[in-house]
C-alpha cells in the first residue's frame, strides 16, 4: 500500500555558520506514524519548522498530495492541514487555557467578536475527547509544564489536520500519560492521519512508529520500517558508532555519612507534599520516582528554598539549616537544575559561554576582572564533555537545538561543583549518546564525594543510574528501594500508585 501524503524533496537549510539540513528528503504515507530520529542538533526540528512555515528552506520542494506547496507562515501550514506540537511549549501565560487552545481561530458570534460560551464548550468537548480534566477558564500560567504539554497536544489535534507533527511530545510526560497519548495516536492513525513523531526514547519509537527516518548532522541516513529495527540498530545509525552500554557502571562507594537529612517536611500549600523524610548519603545518587502530580518538583524546590515550608526540618551535615532562598542554598553547597529549564534556566540573548559559566563567574575573576580565557576554557571543556553541538562558544544559546540548550544548562550546574546537586529530569530531550556522557559525569561527581538527588520520570534512567530510589505518591513518600539488585519497574509503579484513591487510580491508568 503506498498512499503518499507528504513528500519533502532535497531540502537544504543553512543558518550562519551551520548547515542545519543538507539535501534531506522525507516521504510520509497516509495513516502512518513516521518517526524522525537523530542526535541533538541533527536537524529534526529544523526540518519540521520548514514544513510548518516557521523557517523557509533555502532549496528543495514540498509536495502535499502530489501538489507542490509553498509554506511561508504557520497560518498557511495550518490552512493546508498541517499542525504541530512544538518542542518548546508556547503558553500565553496570563490567558485562559481555552484562549490558548483557540488562539488564531476563535469561534465568533459575529465577525470579530468572540463567542465565549461556544469557546468554553468546544474546549470542554475537546478535553473530553482526549480525556483531560482541566477547567477551560484556568490561567495557562498556573499549569505545570507537563499539564500544559497535554493542552498543547489537545490543541494540535483540534485542528483536524491531515498531518500532525509531534516534536518530542512526551519529554515532560510520565509513562501513564505517554500510554494515553499512544492510544490517541493509534486512533488518529486509524482515521488516516499521518503523524511525524520525534523522540529520543527508543522504547517509544519501537512501540508506536511504522517507519523510522534517521538523521545525522543535517543529512538523512535512511528510512526503515520500524519492524526491521532494534534499539541497537537505531543508536548505531544515529551516532555512527557502537554504543554498547546505555548506562555507565555504578561506582561502588557506600559511605554511611549522611550529608542531607530531611525530616517531616510539609508544604505550606495543603495540596502539595506532606511529611517527607529521607536521608542522602555522601557519594550516592538518590533517585526520586513517581507520577506527575506526585509533588517531586515541589519537594526539591522547597528544599532549595524556592517554596515555603509549613513544618519540618532540614539538616545539612547534622546541622539544622534553613533555606529561604536559592542564595542561602548555594552557600550551603546545594544546587538545583530545574525542570522547567526553558523558563527558568536559559538566558536567550547570551552566548553559550556566558550561559555555561554564569552560575560561578566569580571563579574566573581576578579582582573585579573576569578572565575571558579561563571562562572560555571552562565552557569549551563542557562543550567537549557533553558533546554540545554549537559552531562556537560565542553562539547565542537561542540558536542551539533544544537538546543542546539542555546540555548547556546541565553543564552550568556541573561546573558549580556543589556538594549536593539536585537534578530535576536531567536528561529530558537529550539524545542517547549525550545521556551516557551526562551519566558518566554524574558518576564522576559521586566518585569525588558529591551527592546527587535525581528526579526522573524515565524508568530505565531511574533504575539504571540511582543507587537508591525514593518513590513518591500524591505528595507522600510511598517507599524506598535500597538496593540496585531489587530495583524493578513493577515495584516502582506499585509504590507510585500505592496511596491512590480509586478515582485517581483510574485517571492514572
Amino acid at each position, binding site marked *: 500500500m503506498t498512499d503518499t501524503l507528504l513528500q519533502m524533496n532535497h531540502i537544504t537549510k543553512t543558518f550562519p555558520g551551520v548547515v542545519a539540513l543538507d539535501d534531506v528528503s522525507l516521504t510520509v504515507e497516509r495513516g502512518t506514524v513516521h518517526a524522525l530520529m537523530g542526535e541533538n542538533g541533527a536537524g529534526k526540528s529544523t526540518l519540521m519548522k520548514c514544513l510548518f512555515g516557521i523557517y523557509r528552506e533555502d532549496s528543495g520542494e514540498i509536495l502535499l498530495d502530489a501538489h507542490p506547496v509553498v509554506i511561508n507562515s504557520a497560518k498557511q501550514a495550518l490552512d493546508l492541514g498541517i499542525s504541530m506540537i512544538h518542542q518548546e511549549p508556547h503558553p*500565553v501565560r*496570563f490567558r485562559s487555557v481555552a484562549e490558548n487552545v483557540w488562539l*488564531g481561530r476563535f469561534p465568533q458570534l459575529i465577525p470579530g467578536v468572540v463567542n465565549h460560551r461556544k469557546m468554553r464548550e468546544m474546549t470542554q468537548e475537546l478535553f473530553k475527547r482526549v480525556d483531560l480534566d*482541566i477547567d477551560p477558564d484556568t490561567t495557562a500560567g498556573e499549569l505545570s509544564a507537563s499539564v500544559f504539554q497535554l493542552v498543547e497536544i489537545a490543541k494540535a489535534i483540534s485542528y483536524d489536520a491531515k498531518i500532525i507533527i509531534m516534536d518530542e511530545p512526551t519529554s515532560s510526560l510520565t509513562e*501513564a500519560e505517554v500510554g494515553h497519548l499512544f492510544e490517541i495516536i493509534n486512533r488518529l492513525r486509524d482515521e488516516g492521519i499521518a503523524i511525524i513523531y520525534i523522540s529520543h526514547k527508543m522504547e517509544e519509537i519501537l512501540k508506536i512508529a511504522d517507519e523510522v527516518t534517521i538523521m545525522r548532522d543535517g543529512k538523512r541516513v535512511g528510512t526503515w520500517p520500524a519492524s526491521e529495527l532494534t534499539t541497537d540498530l537505531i543508536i548505531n545509525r544515529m551516532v555512527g558508532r557502537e554504543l554498547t552500554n546505555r548506562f555507565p557502571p555504578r561506582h561502588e562507594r557506600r559511605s554511611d555519612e549522611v550529608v542531607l537529612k530531611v525530616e517531616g517536611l510539609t508544604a505550606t500549600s495543603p495540596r502539595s507534599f506532606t511529611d517527607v523524610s529521607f536521608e542522602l548519603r555522601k557519594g550516592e545518587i538518590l533517585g526520586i520516582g513517581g507520577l506527575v502530580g506526585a509533588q517531586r518538583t515541589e519537594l526539591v524546590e522547597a528544599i532549595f528554598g524556592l517554596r515555603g515550608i509549613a513544618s519540618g526540618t532540614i539538616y545539612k551535615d547534622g546541622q539544622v539549616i534553613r533555606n529561604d532562598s536559592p542564595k542561602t542554598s548555594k552557600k550551603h553547597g546545594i544546587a538545583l537544575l530545574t525542570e522547567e529549564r526553558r523558563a527558568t534556566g536559559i538566558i536567550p540573548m547570551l552566548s553559550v559561554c556566558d550561559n555555561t559559566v554564569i552560575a560561578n563567574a566569580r571563579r574566573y575573576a581576578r579582582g573585579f576582572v573576569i578572565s575571558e580565557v579561563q571562562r572560555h576554557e571552562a565552557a569549551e571543556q563542557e562543550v567537549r564533555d557533553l558533546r554540545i553541538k554549537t559552531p562556537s562558544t560565542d553562539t547565542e544559546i537561542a540558536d542551539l537545538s533544544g537538546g543542546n540548550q539542555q546540555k548547556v544548562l546541565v553543564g552550568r550546574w556541573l561546573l558549580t561543583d556543589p556538594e549536593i546537586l539536585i537534578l530535576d529530569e536531567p536528561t529530558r530531550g537529550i539524545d542517547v549518546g549525550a545521556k551516557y556522557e551526562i551519566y558518566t559525569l554524574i558518576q564522576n561527581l559521586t566518585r569525588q564525594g558529591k551527592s546527587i538527588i535525581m528526579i526522573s520520570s524515565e524508568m530505565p534512567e531511574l533504575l539504571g543510574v540511582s543507587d537508591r530510589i525514593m518513590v513518591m505518591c500524591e505528595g507522600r513518600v510511598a517507599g524506598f528501594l535500597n538496593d540496585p539488585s531489587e530495583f524493578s519497574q513493577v515495584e516502582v509503579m506499585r509504590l507510585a500508585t500505592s496511596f491512590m484513591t480509586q478515582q485517581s487510580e483510574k485517571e492514572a491508568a
Partner: protein
Amino acid sequence: MTTLDETSPEVPVVLNDEDPGEGSTEVATGLGGLNKRVLSWGLVGLGSVFTVGGVLWQHQFDHSGVKDLPIIIAMIGIGLVVYGVTGLLSRGAATDVLTFTPAKAKSFALDNAIILAMLGFVVALCIIKPNFMQVNVIADILMQSSPKMFIALGVSFSLIIAGTDLSAGRLVGVSAVVVATLIQKVDYPNKFWPDLGEWFIVWPILIAIGVCALFGLLNGFLVAQFKMHPFIATLAVQVIAYGAVSLYFAKPPTNGQPIGELRSDFTALGQTKLLEGENWAWLDNWLGTNFRGLSILVVYALVACVAIAFVLNKTTFGKNVYAVGGNPEAAKVSGVNSYVTILIIFVLGAVMYAFGGIMEAARTGGATNNYGNGYELDAIAACVVGGVSLAGGIGKVKGIIIGVLTFQIIAYGLVFISVNAYYQQIIKGIIIAVAVALDLAKYNRR
C-alpha cells in the same frame, strides 16, 4: 489522562515567611467557607442600608458640618448594590466557596493596595478639609480625568504588547490644532484659514482623527515591518509629529498665534454640563447644594471605557493583542497575524489620542501646537499604576480607570489642601514606584 496538578493556584503566599517552622499553618477552616452568593447578597444588603441611610440623613437630619457626605454615602451604597448584583450574576456564584485566611487577607491587601491607599488619602482629606466632601468636587475630578482617560486607554494597547507609545501627547496636539484651525467662527477676522467657510461639524473632526490615524499607521508600520522597538519608533514619530504640527501652526497669516474663537456648536461638545440648568433646579433643591453639573466629557470617557473594555475582552483583535504581548511566539505558531494586529494597535491608539485632542480643543475653546505635551508619560504612569504590565500580556480597563483617577485625586486633593506643587511631583513619583513594586511583588510570589 491526569488530574490537574492543583498546586500552582494554591501557591504558598507565605514564601520567605520569617518562621516557616510554625505559625504559618493556614487556618483555612477558621472562619469557615463563605459562599460567594452569600457574600454578594451581603453586599446588596449593606449597599441598600447605605443608600437608604444616606437619603434619610440628607433629608431628616442635620448635615451642615459634613457637607454632602450623606449623598456620597448614598452613592457608595448604590455602587455596592451594583457590585453585589454583578457578583450574583457571575458564573459560579453559587458554587465558589470563599475562605478567609490570614494569607488571603494579605494577598487581598496587596492586590488592592492602591485602592486602599487612595481610600485612606481621601478620608484624610475629608477630615482635614470637610469641604472636600462635595458632589461638585467629585464632578470636577471626573471631568478633569476624562480627556486623560482617552490617552491612557489609547496607550494601553501598545503597553500590553510590551511596547509603549511616546507619540501620544504630541498627537493630542496635532488633533487639537487640526480640528481648531478648521472650525473657527466664520466671521472671525483673524482666522487661520481666512477663506474657509462653515463646514459641517463632522468633517473637521474626521480630518483630525484621520491625520492622527496616519501617524499611528506610521508607528505601527515601523514596529511591525522593521521589528523596531516601539520606544524608538514612537519617539521618532513623536518628534516628526511635533515638527509637522508646528510648521502648520506657524503658517501665515496667523504666524503661530494661539487659535481661538472656535464655533459654539463645537465648543458645546466639550463644555456642555449635564444635570444642570433650570430643568434641574429640583436636583439642587434635593441635594441642598448648588450642583454645578456633570461635564459631558465624563459621558464620553465612560463610553470610551466600555468600548475599549469590549474590544479587549470580547473581540478577536483584543485577544490577539494579549497573545502577541504575552507570548509572541505562541501567537505566531497559532497563525495570528501579528503584523496586522500591531498596525491596528497603533492606529487605534492614535484615534484615541485624536479624540483626546478634540476634547481638549472643545473644552478650552482653542489650541496651540503645545497642547498635549507630556501627556504620554502621565498616561503610561496611570496604566502602570493600574496594573498594566510593561512586560506585556497583562492589563485591564478597570485598572486603567483606577490609575487615571488615582493621579487625578492626588493632584486635585493636594491643591485643595494647598500643598506646594513641587510636593505633588514627589508624591506622584513615589506612587509610581510603590505601585509598580507592589504589582511586581504580586507576580513574583509563587
